[in-house]
C-alpha cells in the first residue's frame, strides 16, 4: 500500500501563517481591548493555529475523514468537561463571595 501524500503541501506557507498568528497573539495582549474581546480573539487564534498544525503537519487533511472525527473527540469532551465544572464554579464563587464579605478587612493584607 503506497502512501498517497508523496506530494507534500507547501510547509513554509504554514510556517509563516503560524508565526504571524503568534505575533498577532502577543500584539492582542498589549492592545487595550475589552477582556472579552481579547479572550475571544486569543482562543480563536489558538484554535486556528492548532488546526493548521493538525491538518497540515499531522496530515489530517490528507487522511480519511473518520480520523478527523476521532481526533476531534477530546475537544468535544473537553467542552463538556468545562460545562460539567460550571455548577461547581458557581457554588465556589458564591462561597468565596460570602467569605470575602465577612473577612473584608483581613484579606486586604
Amino acid at each position: 500500500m503506497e502512501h498517497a501524500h508523496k506530494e507534500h503541501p507547501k510547509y513554509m506557507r504554514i510556517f509563516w501563517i503560524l508565526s504571524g498568528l503568534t505575533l498577532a497573539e502577543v500584539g492582542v495582549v498589549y492592545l487595550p481591548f475589552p477582556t472579552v474581546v481579547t479572550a475571544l480573539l486569543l482562543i480563536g487564534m489558538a484554535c486556528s493555529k492548532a488546526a493548521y498544525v493538525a491538518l497540515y503537519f499531522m496530515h489530517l487533511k490528507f487522511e480519511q475523514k473518520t480520523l478527523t472525527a476521532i481526533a476531534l473527540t477530546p475537544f468535544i469532551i473537553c467542552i463538556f468537561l468545562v460545562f460539567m465544572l460550571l455548577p461547581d464554579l458557581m457554588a465556589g464563587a458564591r462561597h468565596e463571595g460570602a467569605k470575602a464579605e465577612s473577612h473584608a478587612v483581613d484579606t486586604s493584607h
Partner: protein
Amino acid sequence: MEETTTLDHSADAYEPSLTPDSLGKLGMWLFLISDAMSFGALLAAYGAVRAGAAEWIPPTEVLGINLTAGMTFLLICSSVTMVKALEAIQNGNQSRMCTYLGLTILGGIIFLGLQAYEWTALIKHGLTLTTIPHQGLSGAEISGSVLFGPTFYTITGFHGAHVTGGVIYLIVILIRGLRGTYTAAYNHKVEILGLYWHFVDLIWIMVFTFIYLL
C-alpha cells in the same frame, strides 16, 4: 445458498484489516487523543481553580510573554524541520532526513533550556508551589491566590516532560536513521514520530494561550 458462501468465507484465514503502517499510526493517534484529554483536564481544572479564586494575579504581571512567544516560535520551527525530515526520507534522502532530525532535536533542547531558565527566574522572583511574588513585572504590588504556582508548574511541567520524551524519541529514531534503517519505501516510523512531535507543538500553542496570555 447464502449460508454456503458465509461458510466459504469463514474457512479462509482471518486477515487483519490493519496493516503494520496503519496500525502504528492509529495507535499513536489513540495515544495522542488520550493525552489530549489529560491536558484538557488539566487546563479545565486550571480554569476552575482560577474562576473559583477570589483574586487571581494577571499572568502577564508574573510571566514573561516575550520569552514564551519566542519558545512558541521555536517549537513551530522544529515542527517545520520535522515535516522536512519526513519529506526527505519519503524522497529517499537519508542524510537530509538525519540533518533535519538533528535540527528538530536542537530545537527541542533549546526549548527545554529556555524553560529551565524561565523556571529558575520565576522561582528567584518568588513564584513557587506555595508562594507568589509580591511585586509584578510592571513594578506594581500584586496579590492573589497561591494556587497560581502549582497550576502553572504542573501544566508547563507536564508539557516539558512531553518535550523531554519527544527529544529522547527523536534521538532513538535519528540513531536508527543514521544506521540506514529508513528508506523511501520504509519510513512510517518517522511519520509516527512526527505525529507525536507536532502534537507536543499543538499542546504548547494551547498552553501558551491559556496559561500565559489569558
